[in-house]
């Protein structure tokens, strides 16, 4: 079983350790620090999957052991999903670039764009601006929607979307 990652005994020790932590916070199940980023959570989960995915151990374990391993793996997958569904932390406003008006014609919105969205959302927002400059309203809508997906909390982005969509409707 060496090629399929980890020997059965150490994998079963891991499974028992995880099973004992049922109900614990997500980072404890993934065995990472509480302040871990999404990237770190993904790395941890992939590392576990490479070694402990139940599919890799069908041949080496008894039925009961495989069931325990599957249950432990499923708990860790749930913990990983908890990490994934948390909104991305916003970047401090000071580090983000200056705001830019969102539409070609209208005045700059009063809100400071960069203060109200995450760095990932800002990336999409910049692309939306470029699309607007080209006059490509449809792409702009898409980019803004992507920005909203990256930062669902941002009221600024929602306002921008409404504005462009109403322009598109005209």
């Amino acid at each position, binding site marked *: 079983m*060496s*090629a*399929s*990652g980890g020997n059965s005994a150490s994998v079963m020790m891991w499974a028992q350790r995880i099973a004992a932590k*049922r*109900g614990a916070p997500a980072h404890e199940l993934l065995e990472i620090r509480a302040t871990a980023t999404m990237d770190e959570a993904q790395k941890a*989960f*992939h590392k576990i*999957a*490479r070694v402990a*995915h*139940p*599919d*890799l151990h*069908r*041949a080496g374990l008894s039925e009961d052991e495989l069931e325990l391993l*599957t*249950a432990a*793996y*499923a*708990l860790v*997958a*749930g913990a*990983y*999903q*908890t990490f*994934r*569904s948390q909104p991305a932390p916003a970047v401090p406003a000071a580090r983000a670039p200056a705001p830019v008006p969102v539409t070609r014609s209208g005045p700059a919105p009063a809100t400071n764009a960069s203060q109200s969205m995450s760095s*990932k959302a800002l990336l*999409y927002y910049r*692309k939306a601006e470029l699309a607007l400059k080209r006059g490509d309203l449809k792409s702009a809508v*898409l*980019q803004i*929607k*992507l920005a909203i*997906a*990256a930062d669902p909390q941002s009221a600024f982005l929602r306002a921008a979307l409404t504005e462009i969509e109403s322009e598109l409707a005209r």
Partner: protein
Amino acid sequence: MGVALGIDLGTTNSCAAVATPTGVEFILGSRAERVHPSLVAFPQAGGVVVGADAKRFRLTEPQHVIHSAKRFIGQNIRAPMVQLALTGIRYKVIEGPNQQPVAVLRDRRMTMPEISSHVLLHLKRCAERQLAQPISDAVITVPANFTDAQRQATKEAGRLAGLQVMRLINEPTAAALSYGFGRDRDQLIAVFDFGGGTFDVSILRLQGEIVEVLASDGDFFLGGDDLDRALAETLAAECNTVLNFDPRPHPVLMMKLMMGAEAIKCHLSENDGAEGEIDGIDLPTGEVGSLPFSLSRAQFEGLIEGYINRTIEVTRNVLVQAHLTPQHISDVLCVGGSTRIPIVRQRLAELFDREPNYRINPDEVVAQGAAIQAGSLSGSIIAGTGMGARDAVPTEAHSPLLFGGAPVPQGELKRPVLLDVNPATLSIQTAGGYAERLLDKNSPIPIERTRVFTTARDNQTRVEIACCRGESRRYEENEPLGTLVLDEIPAKPRGDAKIEVSFRVDADGILHVRAADAESGAAQEAHLQVFGAPVESA
């Protein structure tokens, strides 16, 4: 453990393969065909005829040839989309136990899993003949957006065919596995799977031996069949004008037009226009007429535009779900026969700003991926064994599967780790008619999540946990899955009881629900009995 079969059980065609130490070997039919029509005929003369041999009965006795059974398997016959799909078939389907669709053939009634089991049995027998050994294990692929009931029904079909279904895997994931297996690289790909009856699109990350689905979406009632039907309706209208005879109420004629439409569609993928006539149209006068047609590719594209727009819209949407833009994607795999249509490829190229990858064989890549997974689960793929698939085309020299007849690379091959996802959000009903989410769409499976709920009334000793599937915050706007009852909860003021509800989705994508009172430990576990699912035979 012996050889395990990988099966792509399709709406229109099926394909099977096995992973051997030297490569992926496809299972051939009696005419050496790799692609087997998913047809089951029960001809007047008796017996059951499956696959390519069943094709000829479609013209002589269409009411006895079951096609597109996948559209009805595990479905509730009362669902509006199912009712609509029923108008497109020429055999008889009635409502059976548990609201499941049942086909009626003379005096026989057959459930959809029974019909699909004939296709699986046919493939199993072909494989046993070809490999000269009995086969009992299989991995079967299903559309990514298949529901719990559809998955259960597909497993049931496997069981009826005498197969131990080791795993159900999602079709786009199988395609990605086939593409990525043996390449050691980190890339983001999209799989656009537009088949005979279903449409799926998945975004995946390939990272070493890990094949991780980031997001997946689709439309279960959208496929090449719909395009054929759109064209057949046009031909029928043409028939009405030219021959002054409406063929729509006549199943044999409509089947002829559907088959004609399919041929025209395929012709237009290679040519700019199609001209000819459909012969053998029996007119009420007793004469036999023929229907001339002349159609340009552009006219055909106009007919199917709405369907194509829908696929592109779903693709944009799934990218948003994966938090990616089209520019992040480094390859777009075309899977399923309908991706041969030029307008589909053109629209994909526009969306991703790159030519989609059509060097893979869209009809075979899914079965190939299923065979790799079957080989991995059964242990027949082992480290140090190279795999090379004959005729699997592309060029990357270091990828064993994409090797066309050149020497098989040697060296350590790690067993693939598939991280597939749950296709729809799973929730329970809470006070006020809301759906409280337990498992999000696109969560990795197998997965388990538990949440604690409480009682809404004082001294409540019984709760009903109604489970549903769908993205709405309102329970009734989602698809109900079934209800679990937990009683013997100790009487307490409202809000004091702690009821733990666990949702577990297994590696086949099937949901298991457990509810327990945290204090007394009274627990109920349910395998939800879903409408349309096969009835448990006691």
